[in-house]
């Protein structure tokens, strides 16, 4: 009897400890975040949330900043999938970081939630690639310190096809001449993948939104214009009832596998997949996206960078750290080394372009346009891919496309 009582007591005590521990954790969060909330530490430390894979690349900049300015920089590695939602939820409670690493297309959401503070790039704005500065600006205000520009391009297996293709049809012909059933693969899926199909759409002259001097204009939906109809018709002709170049059963993994197995000679994808291809022993060349028309096929550019929290108590240090440290060539090169994505700073981009792969992506990127960050994009994404997938699978191109444009318009109008 006493034995039971004793063990029960210990169970109870453990439970209570855990409970109390949890209660205190729930508002204290991890060690690094605590320091921003306690007043005496607030004056001398910056908390930076970083994509877990980039922590090492930034450590050097953080250390040298601490040394020079006497401000401790705590790098907190976060899972890429959670970083945005965590940031939006924690900033209003005053517990979020001072600086967060993210992508420019978050801007609409971050700014609608009022969780980011403007950044002034000052005269250094001219030192960045123009597409990076455009992407960093939202409704005329700059919020992002860019560090990398990412866009898709065509990876070519040089053993199968030694020469780059002149246009889309040439690409298919070259692949077939090499004896391939499926010369070209691009990531799709049951719900379509407009990001990867966008270069072809731009070649037909159908951007999503028109632009004004403050960036994309949500009031000017362009997706359903005449070029959009032409694009849809072309997409249908390359789909299930046509040449079969596009297939919604091909998802990211299947596309990757066919390229790695040598079943496809051309793969429209981003720099994140180059490593897998070279590791598989494939001699890869980077080509511009072969256009189905006379116009260039311009992909979306995604710009990565750093935001300052609207509730940061250390805005001066945060701005100083970003503009005067992260914005230097050395740090941009460190970040480049860790991710192999083209740096946003022009000087660093030039340096990085000594690598032919990076130079290839940079050449395609020169034609790219920033992915729209305006919240109206949410309505577009919801319908865009589905419409493309149904067209590929044989639906009437023009009717499907126009219905999609009308649905998007009604969603935007609310």
């Amino acid at each position, binding site marked *: 009897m006493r*034995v039971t009582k004793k063990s029960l007591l210990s169970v109870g005590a453990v439970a209570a400890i855990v409970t109390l521990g949890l209660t205190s954790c729930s*508002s204290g969060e991890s060690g690094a975040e605590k320091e921003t909330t306690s007043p005496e530490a607030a004056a001398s430390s910056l908390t930076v949330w970083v994509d877990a894979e980039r922590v090492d690349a930034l450590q050097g900049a953080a250390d040298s900043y601490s040394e020079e300015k006497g401000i401790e920089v705590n790098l907190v590695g976060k899972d890429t999938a959670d970083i945005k939602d965590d940031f939006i939820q924690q900033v209003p409670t005053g517990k979020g970081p001072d600086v967060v690493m993210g992508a420019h297309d978050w801007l609409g959401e971050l700014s609608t939630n009022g969780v980011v503070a403007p950044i002034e790039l000052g005269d250094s704005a001219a030192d960045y690639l123009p597409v990076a500065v455009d992407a960093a600006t939202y409704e005329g205000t700059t919020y992002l310190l860019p560090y990398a520009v990412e866009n898709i391009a065509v990876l070519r297996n040089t053993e199968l096809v030694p020469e780059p293709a002149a246009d889309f049809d040439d690409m298919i012909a070259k692949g077939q001449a090499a004896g391939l059933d499926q010369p070209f693969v691009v990531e799709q899926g049951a719900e379509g993948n407009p990001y990867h199909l966008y270069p072809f759409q731009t070649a037909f002259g159908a951007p999503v939104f028109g632009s004004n001097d403050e960036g994309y204009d949500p009031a000017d939906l362009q997706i359903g214009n005449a070029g959009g109809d032409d694009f849809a018709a072309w997409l249908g002709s390359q789909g299930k009832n046509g040449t079969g170049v596009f297939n919604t059963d091909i998802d990211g993994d299947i596309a990757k596998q066919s390229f790695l197995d040598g079943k496809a000679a051309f793969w429209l994808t981003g720099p994140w997949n180059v490593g897998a291809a070279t590791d598989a022993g494939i001699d890869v060349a980077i080509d511009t996206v072969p256009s189905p028309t006379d116009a260039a096929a311009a992909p979306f550019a995604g710009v990565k960078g750093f935001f300052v929290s609207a509730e940061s108590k250390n805005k001066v240090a945060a701005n100083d750290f970003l503009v005067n440290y992260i914005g230097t060539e050395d740090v941009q090169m460190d970040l480049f080394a860790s991710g192999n994505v083209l740096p946003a700073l022009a000087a660093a981009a030039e340096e990085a372009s000594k690598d032919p792969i990076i130079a290839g992506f940079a050449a395609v990127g020169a034609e790219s346009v920033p992915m729209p960050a305006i919240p109206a994009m949410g309505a577009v994404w919801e319908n865009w891919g*589905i419409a493309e997938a149904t067209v590929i699978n044989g639906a009437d191109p023009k009717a499907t496309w126009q219905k999609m444009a009308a649905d998007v318009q009604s969603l935007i109008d609310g």
Partner: protein
Amino acid sequence: MSIKTDDDAVSGVKLTKRQRRASHIADAAAGGVKVLLLKLLLLGVVDAVAIYGVVILATAGQWLVAAIVVGVAAIVNWIYFSRRKLPAKYLAPGVIFLILFQVFVLVYTGYIAFTNYGTGHNGSKDQAVSSLMSSSLERVEDSRAYPVTVVDQAGTLGLLVTDADGEAMLGTADTPLAPVNATIEDGRAVAADGWSTLQFADVIARTDAISELSVPFSDDPNDGALRTPDGASAYLYTSSLTYDEQAGSMTNLDTGTVYQDNGTGAFTSEAGEVLMPGWQIPIGADNFVRAVTDQRLTGPLVYVTLWTFAFALISVASTFFLGLLLAMVFNDARMRGRKYYRVLMILPYAVPSFLSALIWAGMMNESFGFINQVLFGGASIPWLTDPVLAKFSVLLVNLWLGFPYMFLVCTGALQSIPDELQEAARVDGASPWSVFRLIKLPLLLVSVAPLLIASFAFNFNNFNVIYMLTDGGPRDASAPIPVGHTDILISMVYKVAFTGQTRDYGLASAYSIIIFIIVAIISVIAFRRTKSLEELS
């Protein structure tokens, strides 16, 4: 130790009354000290953790939570130091966990359901105002970057600016820039007479004041004001918004539009134009009203609800009957190698369901999947892309995932039915089918029925399978929201509230409460019904 003495006493070693009493006292004293020490130690740990927590919370200004921690710690101490309170000693840990993990979550979900928490309504009104003000600042076009030094005079901050000609100017929040005598180093004014220069550490320490500091460029407010984001360079800004604290309204200086706080959680103009971000406010039952009346949702809501019921009921029935069948087969003593088969049967249960669902999704791919390529010799059967077949596929995969559980449960229940009943029935000439229908099944249901209800509730909200297998697809192109033919309520709610760029936590909470109520009502009715089964045994 103490058990051993108890055993000795029980085993009947003869002791005198005095000896017995003495040994009891000694025993109690010995155990008491040990127990007491352990108790002190453990409570000490609890209190230490509590004090640590309180210190952390107090420095963070979380007074309410700190008070709760103090309260809980006090109650725990009181309960375990008390000589009586035996029931409380047993109940306290469980109750604390119940409150923390169940009651708190429920109450919080309930609270969120009555607010407009979501994209654009994320923080407090003050935060919204300051965010609007800071984003309305626009750098004057083609204005230059001014090297600045932050200076201080009796607590008043000033900006010491070096202008284009290398001349020093000084201004504060109240006085516009004016020429001043200053020490210039490397073409940059670093100190002015009568003002002390802030070092970088001081700048950092007074970040808030410096980020607020706005020095008028001239007497004309239209010329803008200098602000320094990093304490080293300043830029000329004009603001397009102004906030009137008295009236609680925002005015756009360029257009003259006035945005009022109408109690909707955002500044709204008369024309209905809304300034984002807004802030979080309680909005009563609006979310619940919207959940059932929203034009976009009411259409899909009906068929999604019907499919959810069908999905949950068919899943429970199919898994139960397959599990029961297999349990009966493997329960037959004539079957050899039953152990190995049973292990095989449980395998699907051992793999996490979201993983298996993902693998099934790959196998059911129309052009490349294992099923079409290998089993059907390259046929293109649209397992996941045809509305009807997709529903069938979801049910099939859920059957595969769910039957091992039912198999385990039924095996256990079957083994608890005495063999004599079956023997007796057989002697009376009953056929195997009537033995099963009239004896085994009813007895089985007594113990399994509550589990079937639980399984129904689980499948009603079986998000994993839907999300990983079809993600609700194929999409219903005619619906105005991204809902698909296999979406169940919970996955539809997820899509409405959490996908895309607008999150609506309030609406999602309202939905989850509605779903909770549906499941609760069904469970209560079903449990009432199964009571009649219990009379059997």
